[in-house]
């Protein structure tokens, strides 16, 4: 005899499968001509395979990648500088209830709007190029970093806060002198993570005109030069892997978990 729990599990699985099928039908998965699709893919890969790497284009890719790194770096550092004090006020531990709620709303809005949409807004303001890209990445990262920082600050040992509160120290001073120093490792680690993420985000903002490698890729796409697109993509892949590798090494070397002697 099948138990009730087993029946419930089977019913849940069946419902999930039905939902997946309905979603596939809705996106017209079953209407697609799949043999033709794979034929098209084969043809695209043929067009995108570069016969040789043009040194001039490779140099342009190098400059564009540097610009992408600059956008990601600036966006992360500027955002970190703004996000840290905002996170103090947005945290339930250190901010007032009303200020915290209002600020959380604003910061939530900043990260809800994708970075490429912010890029379009800044392009309308200052024109094409790396500047709107950097501004877009900064704004989005303020929202994103604030969320991470706020959670870190709220996780600080409450006894530290209580000991200093009882001594009459203001919440802001407790955050500055105790909570932030106590969480330095986590704050830096998350900032590094956002920088790694921003290297990819900077490519996306470039696609809509925000400078860097994304901008170059968009031009290659416009000209149907899939071979150039592929070269840029390969270089980008190398950059992303290198940044993540370096980030991992930096974390391991300079941001090890603090080792406490047992009390």
């Amino acid at each position, binding site marked *: 005899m099948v138990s009730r729990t087993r029946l419930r599990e089977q019913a849940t699985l069946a419902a999930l499968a039905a939902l997946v099928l309905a979603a596939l039908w809705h996106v017209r998965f079953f209407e697609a001509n799949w043999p033709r699709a794979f034929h098209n893919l084969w043809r695209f890969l043929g067009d995108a395979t570069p016969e040789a790497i043009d040194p001039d284009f490779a140099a342009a890719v190098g400059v564009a990648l540097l610009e992408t790194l600059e956008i990601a770096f600036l966006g992360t550092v500027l955002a970190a500088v703004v996000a840290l004090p905002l996170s103090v006020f947005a945290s339930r531990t250190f901010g007032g209830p009303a200020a915290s709620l209002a600020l959380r709303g604003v910061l939530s809005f900043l990260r809800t709007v994708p970075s490429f949409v912010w890029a379009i807004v800044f392009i309308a303001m200052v024109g094409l190029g790396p500047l709107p890209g950097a501004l877009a990445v900064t704004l989005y990262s303020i929202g994103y970093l604030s969320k991470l920082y706020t959670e870190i600050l709220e996780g600080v*040992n409450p*006894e*530290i*806060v*209580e*000991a*200093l*509160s*009882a*001594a*009459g*120290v*203001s919440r802001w*001073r*407790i955050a*500055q*002198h*105790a909570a932030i*120093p*106590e969480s*330095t*490792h986590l704050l830096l680690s998350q900032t590094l993570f956002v920088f790694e993420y921003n290297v990819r985000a900077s490519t996306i903002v470039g696609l809509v005109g925000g400078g860097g490698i994304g901008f170059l890729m968009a031009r290659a796409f416009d000209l149907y030069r899939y071979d150039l697109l592929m070269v840029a993509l390969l270089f980008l892949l190398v950059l992303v892997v290198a940044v993540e590798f370096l980030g991992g090494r930096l974390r391991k070397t300079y941001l090890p978990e*603090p*080792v*406490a*002697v*047992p*009390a």
Partner: protein
Amino acid sequence: MAEALSAPVVSRSVPAVELADVSFRYPRAAAPILRDVSLRIPAGTSVALMGANGTGKTTLLRLMAGLVAPTSGTVRTAAGRVGYIPQQVGLVGRLSVEENVLHGALSRAGAWQALTNRFSDADRSRARRAIEDVGLAGREEEPVARLSGGQRRRVAIARALVQEPELLLADEFLANLDVAKAAELLDLARSLQRSGVTVVLAMHDLVLAKGAVDRIAFLRDGTIGAVVPSGHVTAEQVRWYLGHA
């Protein structure tokens, strides 16, 4: 060592802390943790709060420190400067001994001083003296995370000393310490009291408490059963405290 501590003038007739019919219930808790607690602690005296885990000692200290407000009743703290040492001492493990001790001077630092992390020479020498008083001279630059439990408690006391407290509240003051280290800390608490500070310690060890404080307040099930001079604890009170009354 701690004899050198400066002694504020206190009057033992004035209560440093006075609780009248205090009850406290944590949000969403089924029952109050403290019920109708009344306690008067004259300035310059010392009291040990004794009771099993969960009897409300920490809550009582947090009420005295002004960290929470009573659900009913009143808490009056005459002491202006309150030093509070939580159960796990509440130090910043990544910072040095001196940096943690200087936190005691944060409340009186000017806005610019606090923002730029530049303490006055007077605060710095006060911190050095406090570190010396608790027997940690020479370890000023050491990160607190590397210290033992007893040493961390000493750092917390030094932080409280820099505040120049009129009232010192310490939770589980002797937790995880061997008898020798516990006795050293109690010596420190006694010399603080001699210098005029009102001392309230939450602790478990009746034998150590008897020689170290003026009075013992026995807590059970959220109420204070008795407040007795530490030299006059009766067997009946001990039985009540241990839950065999």
